[in-house]
């Protein structure tokens, strides 16, 4: 127990020591999105009847921040340790692959939830979205950050250079988040693109998360929960397997 808890604590302390960059900066980014998109689109877009566009935007921005920061946490920590060479301190210890997994994913969940809370508090001040089902909010926030923390772990193991990681982030994670309905309801899309959106697991995370705020969503939150749960199980299985065989960290 002491082993993985130490690693979890160290990973949390790692991002906390640079919280201006890892927590404050993403909160500011989300506020800028809200101010600009909210200002430009407030009177042009109506997603749900009773809800202003700016209020609709808040849960999406919160979830987007949760997802991006969870991914950034595990992936950047691993790639930095690999490039600096200090991953050897962990490789020399008796920590099991499960300890690595829970510590890296756990710290990513911590950062995701912290940034998400920060974004929520600040953006809700501009446009309070209301909270209908807090448990759904929490469940999707935790599962979403765990899934992205796990994907970050896989990407961090796979990448050998910062630009490979940046490519993963820019060409996979960013498009999937932006095209998942953060800024719109997929019902406003043509039928073909609605179908494509349904293939994106990120869509279900944001849709289920938004259900907790409005009691309305594009698909049932139970369907979203199932899909996100299956995606998390699959990613975790892969991540634990890669850690067990020492993929790209033991030769």
């Amino acid at each position, binding site marked *: 127990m*002491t*082993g993985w*808890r*130490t*690693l979890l*604590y*160290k990973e949390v*302390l*790692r991002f906390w*020591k*640079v919280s201006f960059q890892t927590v404050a900066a993403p909160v500011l980014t989300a506020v800028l999105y809200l101010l600009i998109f909210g200002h430009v689109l407030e009177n042009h877009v109506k997603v749900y009847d009773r809800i202003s566009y700016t209020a609709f935007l808040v849960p999406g921005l919160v979830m987007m921040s949760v997802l991006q920061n969870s991914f950034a946490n595990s992936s950047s920590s691993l790639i930095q*340790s690999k490039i*600096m*060479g*200090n991953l*050897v*301190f*962990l*490789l*020399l*210890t*008796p*920590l*099991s692959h499960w300890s690595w997994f829970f510590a890296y994913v756990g710290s990513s969940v911590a950062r995701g939830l912290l940034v998400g809370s920060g974004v929520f508090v600040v953006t809700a001040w501009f446009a309070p979205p209301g909270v209908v089902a807090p448990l759904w909010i929490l469940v999707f926030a935790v599962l979403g950050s765990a899934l992205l923390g796990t994907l970050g772990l896989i990407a961090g193991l796979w990448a050998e250079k910062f630009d490979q990681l940046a490519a993963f982030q820019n060409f996979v994670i960013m498009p999937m988040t932006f095209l998942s309905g953060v800024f719109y309801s997929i019902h406003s899309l043509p039928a073909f693109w609605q179908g494509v959106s349904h293939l994106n697991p990120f869509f279900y995370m944001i849709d289920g998360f938004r259900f907790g705020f409005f009691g309305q969503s594009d698909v049932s939150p139970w369907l979203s929960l199932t899909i996100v749960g299956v995606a998390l199980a699959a990613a975790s299985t892969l991540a634990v397997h890669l850690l067990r065989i*020492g993929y790209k960290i*033991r*030769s």
Partner: protein
Amino acid sequence: MPAISFQSVSKTYSSPRGPKGSTFLALDQVSLNIEAGEFFGLLGPNGAGKTTMISILAGLTRANAGSVKVLDSDVQTDYADARRKLGIVPQELVFDPFFNVREALRFQSGYFGIRHNDAWIDELLDSLGLTDKANANMRQLSGGMKRRVLVAQALVHKPPVIVLDEPTAGVDVELRQTLWQFIARLNKQGHTVLLTTHYLEEAEALCGRIAMLKAGRVIALDRTSELLKAASGNVLRFKIDGELPPALAQRARITGRIVQFPARDALDIETYLGAVRQAGLLAQDIEVRKADLEDVFLALMGQQHEGGAAAPPAP
């Protein structure tokens, strides 16, 4: 039960520069036992396989064949136990820039399942002259100080077996002294020490037994005193201004102006000095000294190259 045991260990790397699919044999059927309480030296030129052996021992690399055990724990099948028994000081000067010295040592203790380790951490800091750097960030430390922290990190869990992979490479004299005093003390207390180094005088002074590696094979393994006895005995040493003819230079150990030849007897000495005079050179500051480990090392490495012991040229 040996402290460290290598049994027929082989390791092949796919070679990055050669044609696709070509491989490089880093270790070739290496067998070696290091007994508990020994101060053991592992010597060899760059690329001989020293670091590969340490990496396999540490679990950083997997052997293709053979088995490696630390105090009876297999480094693959029983890795958690094996790693608890091992304290490894890595060769590269690595550090985590986010934390200070004490934090780094506390984390390392925690990874090994040890909480509240501050008493031992303070002792380590004191023994390594790091007490006043305890709260300094790792980034602010000089290379030598970082090296000391690496040693402390390797010892936080009081491992019975300590492995130092070229710990004094690029380290100043003072730190070398501190480090060796400390390691010698741990060895006296019963810790087994495995050392790889390029400084042969260190190995000669510290190690009870030595293995020499070349191209992935153990080419010599004996008590340090026996290895020294096996050396040709004496060394002729002198200074010259100018270059030795190639036939002579091949057999010499040359450091700037200083030239050294292995010499068994007076005839050898006369022969070498005669050859130098014939080449039109003047030998100065001539002395004859006892062979040291470096001579043994060079003779062994040379033998493998040329297929014969270095002998004086025919007069």
